[in-house]
């Protein structure tokens, strides 16, 4: 069975948020209608984003790694959000495995968002329906677009090509090749949801920093001195895949 999904390379991702912005841009203007924000230019802006990029620091200072982590709907093979929906507004397409929400059937009970372990469903308070990543289903089959643009908006906008789109069940697809070549893994493999999106592991980048380049403030609070750090050696090694 065909299963379209994204493969995201955490080593290539620079955390520019272009995928999130282009996602929001396309989905505010695409065929699914607007995606409004509350207080967009105020102090407390909030609204639905299908794709969010979070940044994590791994390790303890000064031996740390920054990992930018884009996360959107995983289009799970055993999507828990679909089975709990009382109206079948959430459904998984047979033909390509995309999980979608029928906005005309959603009653706004939010039960599907409770059932999602990844927190990838967001409630649109303006329309009162649950929304989520559509994998740009209104782009990828859109014959009005040139053929090379029939891809999700996030994939097109990624400047480092950290995102690959394709059928993960087809061993010949770009996505499957990226998974097998780059040791792609799934998030929360023991969640039982069997997510389709895969991540390629971050690899450790070692930068040698001398002791005199670090000041330790009292009471354990530490902070780096901002000065030019000469990169003496860059070691690339496997960072380890969790599970």
């Amino acid at each position, binding site marked *: 069975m065909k299963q379209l999904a994204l493969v995201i390379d955490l080593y290539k991702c620079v955390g520019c*948020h272009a995928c*999130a912005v282009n996602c929001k841009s396309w989905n505010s203007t695409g065929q699914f209608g607007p995606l409004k924000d509350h207080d967009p230019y105020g*102090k*407390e*802006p*909030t609204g*639905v*984003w299908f794709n*969010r*990029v*979070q*940044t*994590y*620091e*791994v*390790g*303890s200072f000064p031996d740390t790694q*920054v*990992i930018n982590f884009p996360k959107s709907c995983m289009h799970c093979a055993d999507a*828990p959000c679909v*089975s*709990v*929906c*009382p*109206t*079948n*507004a959430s459904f998984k397409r047979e033909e390509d495995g995309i999980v979608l929400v029928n906005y005309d*059937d959603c*009653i*706004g*009970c*939010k*039960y599907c*968002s*409770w*059932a*999602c*372990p*990844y*927190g990838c469903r*967001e*409630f649109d308070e303006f329309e*009162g*329906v649950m929304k989520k990543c559509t994998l740009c289903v209104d782009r990828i089959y859109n014959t009005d677009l040139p053929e090379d643009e029939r891809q999700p908006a996030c994939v097109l906008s990624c400047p480092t090509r950290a995102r690959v789109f394709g059928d993960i069940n087809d061993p010949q697809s770009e996505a499957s090749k990226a998974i097998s070549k780059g040791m792609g893994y*799934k*998030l*929360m493999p*023991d*969640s039982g949801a069997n997510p389709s999106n895969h*991540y390629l*592991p*971050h690899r450790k980048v070692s930068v040698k920093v001398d002791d005199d380049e670090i000041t330790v403030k009292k009471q354990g609070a530490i*902070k*780096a001195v*901002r000065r030019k750090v000469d990169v003496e050696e860059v070691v690339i090694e496997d*960072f*380890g*895949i*969790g*599970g």
Partner: protein
Amino acid sequence: MSPEYSIILLTVFAGAGQGLFACLVAGDALGFITGAPMDINIMLTGAAVSLGMTIAGVGSSFLHLTHPERGIKTIKQWKKSWLSLEAILLPVFMGFVALYGILAYYGADTSLRLIAGGLGVVSAMALYLASGMIYAAVPYIKEWSTPYTPINFTMIGLASGGALQVGLLRFFNGPHITSIVMIAGLFAVTFTAMVIKLAYYLRNRRLYQPLTIQSALGINHPDIVLMDMGTGYMHYNTKEYDYKGYQNSRGTIRIASIALLFILPLALMTFDYMPLFNGDSAVAVGGGVLALITAVSMIAGALMERWLFFVDGSHAQNLYYGGSKDFAAPNPILQASKKGAPLPPG
């Protein structure tokens, strides 16, 4: 989880309504067996109060939905969604309660009335199971995903409804034997409910969370800290799943809920109903006022208990925000910019 007040009202009020009806039918059957039938006023008032409370609960649950006009579509998925089953069972239960009331009002045959009541009790029990399983079937909220959840819903619903039924029996001076049996039963149910609830709290204190931030991100390192959640302000996922309100008062609310839901009712019951066991079938002290206080105290306690049930729930997706328990780890850059202080270098 953030407390959904409409759902709290639904589960508490509909739960008490179901419990009241179950106890009413039990009392009715007991009267039929012992040959000391219950007053028709008790049946009519009981059915009306039960129906009223369930309707109040359903009305409040509609406030939770943003599109209640599409509610009829929920009947489609009864095979796979507990929520759908609950939406079907609620009107079924209300129908049986109304039928029971109508049969009692027109003085229909006792066995006919008891059959309608019995079917109503079956639907009430199925409804407890369905409403409890809505929460117990979410594996990513470990506090909810346990058989304790539906059992708790059932026991607390039966106890608060039973208190209402005993209040009615006292108010209308119901048959002596029925009163004695119902009070003894209520005492046992309330006590069992307390034991189960305390066991549930103990279970949650040492809960094992199999999902970790390491498996959530797929990064095998013990120290992972969220630096930037991608947005400058809260959004749906952080608001819905990480409720930080009343954090300091939760312990007090927990003690108050146990006191109001179990301790005070048990004490009041002992005080109010002891004369009955001594063969004194006279109207209770103050004509059932103490029984009414018991019921009100139980419902107030149940509202607190349900609120705690929601806020205790910790969703697995909170792992993405720095850990399931304390995602509140302050972001130094965000904090500094909020206070107007200069940004730290970097």
